[in-house]
């Protein structure tokens, strides 16, 4: 756990009001479910972004929907704001307990103890789960039934389904199967007023507006998901994973030369160390279609001048290739102590140009960038690595971050493909949305949370920048759990 190194800084900052508040929470949820600003709550002061941490006032760890209702009601009675949280693997500060000035100190509602898989209907391929179930645990749980949960963010060993819902998470296989929203069919939600409702349903066309769709990706600003119905997919009868080197990105996952070398030093997956870039392509489905598609991929790669094309010979080799892709983060940690990770989407046809522009901007700032990303979706993840002890480097990293966003928007792209807006990109929302567009989003927000108590200060920009944001003091790799990546 990365937060423990900060134990020395832990302190209490309770006052009489806090005491009554905490006592009520303890009476309702049980003593072990409430942490009140002492040592244990330190681990909840940040997420996996490079944004400044913020100490939660009080942390609660509910186990049931009733616990969440109680926590929300008590928080509301005491005029507290609420910050929902999963495993804290978010990359844009969405779970950081920093609220706008003048807002009551937040209670962080951590859903990791709500980790039960409640029901699996193998016939209809649906599972009800609590929000704290880990993404990979769900797929493992249903694997014996020949099923899996398709969205696979690279942090899937540690991220929760509830967090995936809040962020509408992506992952390599979302290219074919769609992002989280396409796999969530119903959500039990505790609304910011403490009322419980179900959005969506197990039937195909629930009555009313698609509030389920509006809730997915709302980053904890519309309420707290307490039970989630996910769609499960059959494991494909045939799958082939192909790696191809030295071509322009055409499909799925790409790793650039810096990245490949770092990964090989770390994971020894047999990637070609001399390649300018490696493309990881996977096709799946019925036998004949897979054979035809795999042959086509191979043919296209060779026609484009790929240096090597290798098809994973078996499940072990396939697993190793994916391990290489998903462990890129740990690998890169060997190169520099700090990083700034980006997430933007551009039309696929613009990828090569955008990569060139980003590289130029980064190099002009005398920094290093590595790229490992979802090429098939046009979803870039430039990773700028640096050493924050070097004078002036943090300022350069900030400037590069702003320029990368501007480059993507100028190329018809958006601010974020899968990491979300959180605290990090609120100030950029005006680059892609007009005041009228943002007003529609505000209206949606206001219906669910008229008093702005649920994750205030996230997603939508405030009227002014009002000093809420202090990005980029340099998150250190050493602080992070293994397996954490995009």
């Amino acid at each position, binding site marked *: 756990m990365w937060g423990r190194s900060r134990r020395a800084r832990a302190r209490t900052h309770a006052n009489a009001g806090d005491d009554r508040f905490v006592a009520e929470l303890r009476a309702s949820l049980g003593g072990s479910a409430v942490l009140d600003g002492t040592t244990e709550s330190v681990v909840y002061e940040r997420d996996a972004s490079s944004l400044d941490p913020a100490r939660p006032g009080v942390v609660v760890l509910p186990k049931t929907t009733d616990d969440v209702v109680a926590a929300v009601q008590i928080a509301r009675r005491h005029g507290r704001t609420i910050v929902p949280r999963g495993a804290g693997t978010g990359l844009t500060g969405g779970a950081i307990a920093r609220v706008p000035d003048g807002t009551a100190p937040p209670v962080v509602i951590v859903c990791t103890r709500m980790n039960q898989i409640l029901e699996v*209907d193998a*016939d*209809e391929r649906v599972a009800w789960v609590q929000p704290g179930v880990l993404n990979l645990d769900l797929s493992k749980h249903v694997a014996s039934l020949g099923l899996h949960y398709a969205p696979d963010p690279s942090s899937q060993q540690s991220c929760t389904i509830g967090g995936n819902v809040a962020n509408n998470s*992506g992952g390599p296989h*979302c290219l074919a199967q*769609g*992002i989280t929203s*396409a796999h969530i069919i119903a959500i039990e939600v505790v609304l910011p007023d403490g009322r419980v409702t179900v*959005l969506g349903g*197990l*039937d*195909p*066309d*629930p*009555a*009313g*507006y*698609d*509030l*389920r*769709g509006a809730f*997915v*990706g*709302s980053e904890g600003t519309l309420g707290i998901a307490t039970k989630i119905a996910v769609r499960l997919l059959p494991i494909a009868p045939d799958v082939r994973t192909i790696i191809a080197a030295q071509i322009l990105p055409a499909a799925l996952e790409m790793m650039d030369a810096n990245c490949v070398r770092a990964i090989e030093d770390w994971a020894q997956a047999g990637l070609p160390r001399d390649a300018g870039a490696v493309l990881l392509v996977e096709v799946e*489905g*019925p*036998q*004949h*279609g897979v054979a035809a598609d795999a042959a086509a991929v191979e043919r296209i790669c060779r026609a484009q001048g790929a240096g090597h094309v290798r098809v994973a010979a078996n499940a072990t080799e396939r697993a190793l290739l994916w391990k290489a892709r998903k462990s890129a983060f740990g690998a890169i940690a060997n190169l520099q102590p700090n990083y700034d990770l980006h997430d933007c*989407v*551009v*039309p*696929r046809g613009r990828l090569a140009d955008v990569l060139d522009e980003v590289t130029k901007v980064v190099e002009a700032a005398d920094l290093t960038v590595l790229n490992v990303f979802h090429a098939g*979706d*046009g*979803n870039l993840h430039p990773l700028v690595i640096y050493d924050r002890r070097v004078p002036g480097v943090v300022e350069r990293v900030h400037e590069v971050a702003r320029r990368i966003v501007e480059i993507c*928007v100028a190329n*018809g*792209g*958006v*601010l*974020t*493909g*899968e*990491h979300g*807006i959180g605290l990090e*990109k609120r100030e950029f*929302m005006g*680059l*892609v*949305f007009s005041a*009228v*567009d943002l007003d*529609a*989003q505000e*209206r*949606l*927000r*206001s*219906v669910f949370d008229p008093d702005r108590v649920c994750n205030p200060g996230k997603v939508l920009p405030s009227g002014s920048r009002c000093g809420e944001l202090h990005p980029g003091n340099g998150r250190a790799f050493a602080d992070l759990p293994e397996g954490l990546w995009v």
Partner: protein
Amino acid sequence: VSSTPIETEALVAAPPNGPGWSEALRRFADQVGPSGPVRVVGGRTHHAVGGIGDSLVREVRAPSGGIVHEPSELIVRSGAGTTVADLNSVLAAAGQQCALDPADPHRSTVGGVLCVGWSGLRRLRYGPVRDLLLEARYVTAEGLLSRAGAPVVKNVTGFDVCRLLVGSLGTLGLIGEVVLRCRPAPPMARWCSGTVDDPAALRRKLLQPSSVLWDGRTTWALLEGHRDDVLAEVDHLRKGLGFVETAGPPPLPTAGRWSVEPGALRHLRAPSDHALDAVRRAGPFVAEIGIGTVHASVAAPARPIDGLNARIRLAFDPNGRLNPGRSPW
């Protein structure tokens, strides 16, 4: 770009009512205007869904045409008033498709299908229509042009207003132009039908059926994909279960469209105390196996609805001017 772009514009974020909005969209916004009741009309194939509305209310139509297909991006931009058949023909020319799948594509418009939010018979394979909409340019109740989403396939920038618009029957905003997700058209498609004891079990046995339908006696399956995979599965159904190839799906009853949990479809087999017994008694029906949509000879009952819905409508259209008399619940 595979088609003839009519009224094209650059695919960049643009401020409303400024440069970047097509002339057609601006005209549409002017027609809607800032006040007075107004209703949007497409092909009138589903104009009674959610209430017939007030026929005296002023009608507007979304722009048609404006199709810009980008096959390599797997996206297509289109005026909402374009018929689905016109869109399909542009996509088919490049070997792609977009599974809007209304019953009457020559009359139904792209915007109409999205407004009503009814998915077609291939939902089992391609998902619901709500997942197809990447960007919507729409006119607000204040008569302003607004944009939700963006023309990229993966996007979590802000709240997902696109999802709210699909199935809203034009009560939150009037869609003028959309960007939809496309996919390669399958090289082969075959319908076949026969009799099985448990159509749900058949659906699980098939590799990736695009549709499995059941009318209480006969089961239909649509298989799409690589030629050899499709033929192998058709062959299996023919030899193993006595299925025959058919030209297409059965005619669908239109008096009612029920939405039930797919597991509940078993109640259609024999008399039961489930609500679906009304469907079984009313006459012919066709159920979408694995989905839970039932095309029935009797109207579906009204369902309870959370108060959030009415508040959403009020927030987006405080004066109730958009499609008065119609409601998605």
